[in-house]
Structure formats: C-alpha cells, structure tokens
C-alpha cells in the first residue's frame, strides 16, 4: 500500500513542480525493458493470490516468486543510469537478502500481525505458515535472520488500511517518487546545487 501511495505522491509532486508538463515528464522517463516488471508481477501473482497455508502448499508459487527477482534485477540493470532506479534497487536488494536468508519468504512476526489485525491474538498466527495474499511467512523475531530488514514497520489502525512494511519498501517508495520527477527535474536540481556551491 505504501508503494501505491508513493506513485500518487510522486505524481502529485511532479504536478506541483511541472504543472501542465507533468504528463510530458512521465512520458519522457527513459525506462528500458519495462515489460520485465510486468512479467515479474505476473510470476508473483500466484503467490499473491494464495490464501494462508503451510509453506509446503505454496512451493510452486514460491519458486515463481523467487524467479521473478531475476527479472526485476535484469530490469534494474537495464535502467541503472536512472537515479530513482538506483535507490529502488537498494530497496529490492534489502528485501531480497532478507527473503533469501529466511527460506524464500519475507518474515513477519505475530506481534506485527496483531498490530495490523486488531482484535486478533498472538495464538491466531501460527509460526512457519505463509501469511495469505502476501509474500510473507510468519516467524518469531528470534527465529528471523536479518530481522531489521523484515516487515517490522507497521501503520496500525485508525489508518483505514493497516499495513506492515520493511525498510526496503521505504527505499523502493523513495525510488519511485524520485523516478516520477523525471530526469530533467533531477538535472535542474543538480545544476541549482552546483550554482549554490560555486557562489
């Protein structure tokens, strides 16, 4: 959800800066092989549609999910010249490292799940189970490797869409916001900075 918000924020910022030229700025983003991102999502879709179940039941979906990261990395490599993508890749790598360190799923603790699912108890979140409709596995904090990179951040109610996310997600969100500002904005900002330095 924070990433959907990042796209909206990115577009609004672009609108504030470019006014009537926002759409031209978006059209001018020199994204290469963007279809790789669409294909990566298609590979992840089965896991994202899988309900809560023991991880053995989502083995095939998990393999597709891990394969999709190859496409994401290929997309990132093709677009490595873009500042927004460089920030985004740092986020993807943070997430990928913790996913690989924890058996191929993003760990989330029962405590975080209780935070974003008010009214539930810790006992309702069995450890080692795939958290439905997500890429997560429920693990205790002690059993989680690289815990700091896992889904430890939460926006609980009264926010209408309670959500948990990782530090990597925050980087990805920033990357998308920067990307949506367009290359010309970034170049203008860097020119302004260099003028300030020389004055």
């Amino acid at each position, binding site marked *: *959800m*924070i*990433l959907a918000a990042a*796209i909206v924020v990115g577009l609004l910022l672009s609108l504030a800066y470019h006014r009537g030229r926002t759409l031209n700025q978006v059209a001018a983003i020199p994204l290469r092989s963007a279809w790789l*991102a669409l294909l990566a999502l298609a590979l992840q879709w089965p896991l994202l549609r899988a309900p809560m179940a023991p991880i053995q039941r989502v083995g095939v979906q998990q393999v597709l999910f891990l394969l999709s990261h190859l496409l994401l990395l290929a997309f990132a490599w093709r677009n490595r010249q873009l500042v927004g993508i460089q920030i985004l890749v740092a986020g993807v790598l943070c997430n990928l490292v*913790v996913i690989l360190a924890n058996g191929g799923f993003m760990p989330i603790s029962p405590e975080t*799940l209780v935070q974003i699912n008010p009214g539930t108890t810790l006992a309702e979140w069995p450890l080692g189970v795939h958290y439905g409709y997500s890429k997560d596995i429920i693990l205790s904090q002690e059993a989680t490797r690289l815990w700091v990179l896992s889904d430890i951040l939460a926006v609980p109610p009264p926010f*209408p869409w309670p959500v948990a996310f990782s530090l990597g997600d925050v980087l990805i969100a920033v990357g998308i916001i920067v990307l949506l500002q367009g290359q010309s904005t970034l170049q203008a900002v860097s020119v302004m900075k260099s003028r300030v330095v020389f004055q």
Partner: protein
Amino acid sequence: MEKLYHLWGRYGTKRNMRILYIVASLVALAVASAAPGGGGGASGGTGIESFVKFMH
C-alpha cells in the same frame, strides 16, 4: 462504437500510450519489488479489507 473510435483518435496518441505503459510498469514494479504484499506491505484485516487484499 463510433464514439469509441472518436475517443481513440483523440486520446490514443503515441505519447498517451507511452504514459500508460510507464505508469503500468511502475505499478507492476511497486507491487513486484515490495517485500511483503503487492501494494507494498503486508495488509491487515480491518478497514476495506477486500480492497487491500485485492491490491495484494
């Protein structure tokens, strides 16, 4: 049908198609690269649950 052709002729420009492609790719990128759930973050069960689950 004629109205559709008219709209396509008016808005189906190369630039607009490019914008659609880029925004769709960024949405896919956001959903695919976020660690937990699709929209970025594992969703909870309150609020508009079905909407959030759909986003994931």
